[in-house]
């Protein structure tokens, strides 16, 4: 079943088209990678889907409903979560609190419940806490234990990336947008991340992945979409796309492509 579909999605910045007539489809349970050189419109695509930018034309359908015109928090509540290429975790909060913030929309308690601190609130908070720890343990002890109550800013770079993924998972999204989850990681951490992305998929999430590291792209994704100058230039299996002359040209330029 198609989970997310974009039809002729277009976004201009000034006169430059950041995303142009982009048609994209992802089925439930898939991992689709988007590759492309810097500035090819990958992150803009994420920003359009998550509601930070309004598209100039075209449509975004999530489970058959249009997302255009919704606020980011409404889109998030429809079941789309994302991470950022430049990390955006809440540094002054603890690791656990970061995930609890991610659960915010699912919890029921309102201002007056909190004021009165009812039994219901307490039970809900306890359950939320347990679940947050469960999500954090996806990464096998790297974020649990004593680290739970450390400020997020004290984590190592790789752990911050992992935390950001946990935070995104906290709201049980149907679709997870990962923007370069392995950026800045060393080779062994990258391989670990690749395995973990697959494990997360096996837990029932659908994932769109922006990634430069071809090892991750090859290893993790079911399908690859290549972008350049905001347009789709290739689509298909990872190897097939990597060998596509247009893709090689986009990365290396015309001359480079001839040499290659």
């Amino acid at each position: 079943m198609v989970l997310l579909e974009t039809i002729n999605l277009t976004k201009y910045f000034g006169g430059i088209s950041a995303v142009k007539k982009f048609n994209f489809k992802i089925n439930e349970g898939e991992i689709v990678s988007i590759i492309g050189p810097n500035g090819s419109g990958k992150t803009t695509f994420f920003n359009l889907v998550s509601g930070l930018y309004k598209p100039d034309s075209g449509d975004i359908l999530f489970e058959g409903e249009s997302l255009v015109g919704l606020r980011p928090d409404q889109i998030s509540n429809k079941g789309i979560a994302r991470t950022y290429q430049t990390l955006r975790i809440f540094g002054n909060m603890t690791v656990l609190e970061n995930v609890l913030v991610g659960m915010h929309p699912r919890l029921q308690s309102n201002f007056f419940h909190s004021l009165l601190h009812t039994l219901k609130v307490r039970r809900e908070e306890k359950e939320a806490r347990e679940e947050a720890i469960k999500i954090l343990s996806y990464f096998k002890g790297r974020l649990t234990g004593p680290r739970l109550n450390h400020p997020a800013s004290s984590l190592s770079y790789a752990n911050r990336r992992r935390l950001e993924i946990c935070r995104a998972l906290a709201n049980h999204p149907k679709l997870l947008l990962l923007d370069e989850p392995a950026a800045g990681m060393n080779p062994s951490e990258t391989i670990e991340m690749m395995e973990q992305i697959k494990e997360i998929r096996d837990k029932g999430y659908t994932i769109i992945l922006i990634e430069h590291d071809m090892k991750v792209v090859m290893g993790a994704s079911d399908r690859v979409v290549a972008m350049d100058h905001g347009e789709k230039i290739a689509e298909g299996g990872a190897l097939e796309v990597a060998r596509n002359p247009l893709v090689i040209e986009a990365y290396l330029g015309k001359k480079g492509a001839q040499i290659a």
Partner: protein
Amino acid sequence: MGFETFVGLTLSGLTVGMIYALVALGYTMVYGVLKLINFAHGEIFTVGGYLGATFLIWIGIEDGIPLPLKILYVILAFLFSMILTATLGWSVERFAYRPLRKMTRIAPLLSAIGVSIFLQNLILLVFGVDPIIMPVAAIPEGYIPVFGANFRYLAVIIIVFSLILMGGLTLFIKKTRLGKAMRATSQDREAAEMMGINTNMTISLTFIIGSALAAIAGILVAMYYGTLKFDTGFLYGIKAFTAAVLGGIGNIPGAVIGALVLGLAENYGVGLKLGILAYFFILGLIVGLAYQFYFLPREARKKALFNLADRFSYDEGSLSKVKILNYCYYGGWISGFYFLFKERRDSLVRIHARQAIRVGFANTFLFLVTLIFFLNSNYKISSEWQNGITFLVLMLVLIFKPAGILGEHIPEKV
């Protein structure tokens, strides 16, 4: 000065400080989520006080009625004022700030000043120029003797009530789901939206809580001083803002500490009729201690504050710092220069010496100010100087610690 005077000044300093704190929380919370200085907050405070007093006048509270009923009336007045003032705070944000949120940062600031003037005029229009008088029956009477000083019941109520409110607010922000949403919004609004947090609602909630606290402060001030004028809020607003900056703007415990420091400084400054040396010594000590605190490594600060002996048990480097500070205490200028020439080979020490001269400057300045007071008013500082002292404290703190006592709450985007 007798000990009673000192106790009395401390208590009234704490009382006034608590009221500043209630107002300062509103400034600091709004700054936290919007990076906006809400200049209309002082007027929101006045409106709160006026509404409370009006309610009590309207309901006809008088000496004849039994105490439980009186208490009920006062509680109703608080609730009435809090609800209306919170609505006002919400609408100010909704109609004067939100439409300008995506403009330059100066636009909402100007809008805030506009709202401030607008509200002041509105109060004039509705209530007139004459101050509103809080019905005497609504004000708790009586005194508690504390070490010979008389402490008003009302002051006790103000301090306890404020402490409960601040504790509650801290718990709310630390523990609850909405508090976490507020913190997330203040750190990174866009990321918070991605988490499904309705940030507009969170910002509204901030204004609602801040305004309700200001309303409480307004009524308490009206009770404490008996009256409230249309422009009372201006000065309270400015001072509470000072307190927020003093403690580190955006930092909630900072606002409370800043407000208490301010309230105490104001009262000591005005009330103490000390000999010139004693005055010089106390202020010098405050500056010196604050500075020493600033110098020590973070983990040593707490120790140093509570244990004098610990201050002298550090390595060479810190010891020399302690030495400088001792010079500063007693010598001002001279010691700073002395130090500079004595040990100028060591560049690190020279940096410290430069700091020492700064302390020296400050101490000399204080000395001169004190001298002027001494010559002019025969040991006494008249109450006209109160606001001057407030801002002197602010300047001094900010010279040495630009981010405020507890540091500015700078959201870490990591």
